[in-house]
């Protein structure tokens, strides 16, 4: 092959690289055959021997604080600010921050894992091949069994029940699972009674021009509350940036965000002020304590986000009392925190006149 032919060939190869709609790898969590809990190795330790549990990431933190706080030997979050700790009375004061284990950027060394002497390591997320093989490697090298809990909302009840049994806390697992199941059924009832199918945009980051596409775990609370994610058909399940022009073209009925910085900026930005959703006071800042309600981390905390989103999307069918009763019950059962009316106000749990200040 002479130089020119080689060049034109490599040029053609380079330019024909498909830039867009890169097929996302199949996810175990979205297709059929979902497993709520994946133990590694397959048999796992006997439940009665599990006394020390290590959390591998923020999603597992939320899960374990709710399910087995007394067995927790470390939280992955390196620091727990007091305003967050206030809603988590079950967490011991001196619980160390151990760092993240797998996934993007590990800050926890294998040696430290062994030194902490956990009976089991719990992580959460979509159990894809890469994730499973990472934990297999860790379990193989340290001899400590691991378990992956599914992070998806529809798997949540089954996951809590199964994991509760494996961690030797079957009653708690059962109680949390029952609450989850009845809440999901209750919200589904509200959704069916309501005829509303609002079109919702999730504004992420301080600019508000980052969003979650359809099927992304970050948009799950929106998609499960009977609303339509305006970015659902823009691509595969992932996060993406969008242009202001695209947002104008989508013209969502409702905008929700978890970014305080964006919420403040949108109050003065004329472009956002011109959007119909903002004009009609339908820009909502989601509560973010003790963890984010809509996402970050995308764990069982999003059941709160689902309750909150259902209230926003189907307010007429979801009376105030009913709404606060569900929130209070979640906080008591999952976080061990008795919410007062004052707390509810502090959490910004209301969805009334939060569109404009």
């Amino acid at each position, binding site marked *: 092959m002479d130089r020119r032919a080689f060049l034109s060939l490599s040029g053609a190869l380079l330019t024909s690289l498909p830039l867009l709609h890169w097929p996302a790898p199949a996810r175990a969590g979205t297709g059929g055959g979902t497993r709520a809990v994946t133990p590694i190795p397959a048999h796992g330790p006997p439940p009665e021997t599990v006394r020390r549990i290590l959390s591998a990431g923020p*999603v597992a933190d939320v899960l374990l604080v709710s399910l087995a706080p007394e067995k927790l030997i470390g939280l992955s979050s390196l620091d727990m600010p007091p305003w967050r700790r206030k809603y988590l009375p079950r967490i011991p004061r001196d619980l160390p921050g151990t760092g993240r284990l797998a996934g993007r950027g590990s800050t926890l060394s294998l040696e430290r894992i062994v030194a902490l002497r956990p009976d089991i390591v719990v992580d959460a997320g979509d159990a894809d091949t890469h994730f499973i093989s990472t934990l297999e490697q860790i379990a193989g090298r340290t001899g400590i069994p691991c378990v992956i809990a599914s992070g998806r909302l529809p798997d949540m009840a089954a996951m809590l029940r199964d994991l509760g049994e494996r961690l030797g806390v079957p009653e708690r697992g059962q109680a949390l699972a029952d609450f989850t199941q009845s809440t999901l059924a209750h919200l589904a009832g509200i959704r069916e009674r309501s005829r509303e199918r609002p079109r919702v945009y999730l504004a992420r980051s301080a600019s508000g021009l*980052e969003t979650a596409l359809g099927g992304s775990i970050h948009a799950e609370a929106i998609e499960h509350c009977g609303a339509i994610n305006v970015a659902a058909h823009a691509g595969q399940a992932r996060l993406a940036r969008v242009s202001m022009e695209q947002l104008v073209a989508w013209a969502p009925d409702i905008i929700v965000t978890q*970014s305080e910085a964006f919420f403040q900026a949108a109050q003065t930005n004329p472009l956002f002020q011109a959007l119909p959703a903002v004009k009609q006071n339908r820009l909502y800042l989601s509560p973010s304590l003790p963890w984010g309600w809509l996402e970050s981390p*995308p764990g069982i905390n999003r059941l709160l986000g689902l309750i909150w989103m259902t209230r926003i999307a189907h307010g007429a069918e979801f009376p105030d009392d009913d709404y606060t009763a569900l929130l209070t019950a979640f906080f008591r059962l999952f976080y061990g925190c008795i919410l007062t009316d004052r707390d509810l106000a502090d959490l910004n749990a209301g969805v009334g006149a939060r569109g404009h200040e």
Partner: protein
Amino acid sequence: MSNRSRILLLLGLLILASLVSLLVGQHDISPATIVRSMGRSLADLGVDMSSGDDVVLWKIRLPRILAAVVVGAALSVAGTAYQGMFRNPLVSPDILGVSAGAGLGAVLAIYLDFSVRVTQLFAFSGGLLAVTLVCAVAWCARTRSLILALVLSGVAVGSLFASGISLIKILSDPHSQLSSITFWLLGGLNTIGADDVLGALPWITLALAPLVLLRWRMNLLSFEDDEARAMGVDVTRTRIAFIVAATLMTSAVVAISGVIGWVGLVVPHMARFLTGPDFRILLPVSMLSGALFLVVTDTAARTVAPVEIPLGILTAFIGVPFFLVLLVRGGDRR
């Protein structure tokens, strides 16, 4: 083709590309509406904020095209200046650590949950800080060659700041902040409004002035330092003026657009293939080509898919093959 007609041709292409870019976008506006809206605003210089079409056209699409013109032009000019100054065609505007410094500033601001405006400010200061540090180290270094000292300390400080970025990535919340950080580091014009462009423009103009005024001296810098000195040029002072100007320009641009790679490296080459190394002609040609390149790329970034394609990726995909072809087919060996 004379140099004047080359410049006019590029200017014509830039205007044509901008007009085409104004016609396309996610929000459907018919060309007739655009022409009518243009006529109306030319007549009374007012924009009807109640009409969705007008808002999209004048407040979103036009500022973004202007941003592409300004960012593309500034990055290319800065790249041309750096390449001339270092007498090295492989140099890009981030050789002295501007991008890494700006990146660290922006990433830190995202990590601390600051607003977009504060993020821009952090990025701008970060870029300037990194280059100041590099120049200070080079000034104190005990090497005979200032250029060598600059390049070495630029590489070192650049990787130090890049490690800082990695550290913050590790510490940041993987479910919210990390994606914002990644998007910022890939660059994009989707968040830019008219106010951002207006904020960066004074700095860019300020930086452009010495480059334009001293453009003939740049040709002298391509000689050996001793020869240039013999011709009466204060080599060190000229070089510092160019560094300050090009850095200021890059920092102002990176602060509003994020890191857009390849423009500052590839476009000066394209310009040099068009006109040769005479900096007096190279400067305007490079500026126009950069603007044209980014207007075209950004139009693709915002129209090809409903979601944005990060500009940094697109400039590489378009710029690199082009660059490789130029590298093999054109140049000195002919």
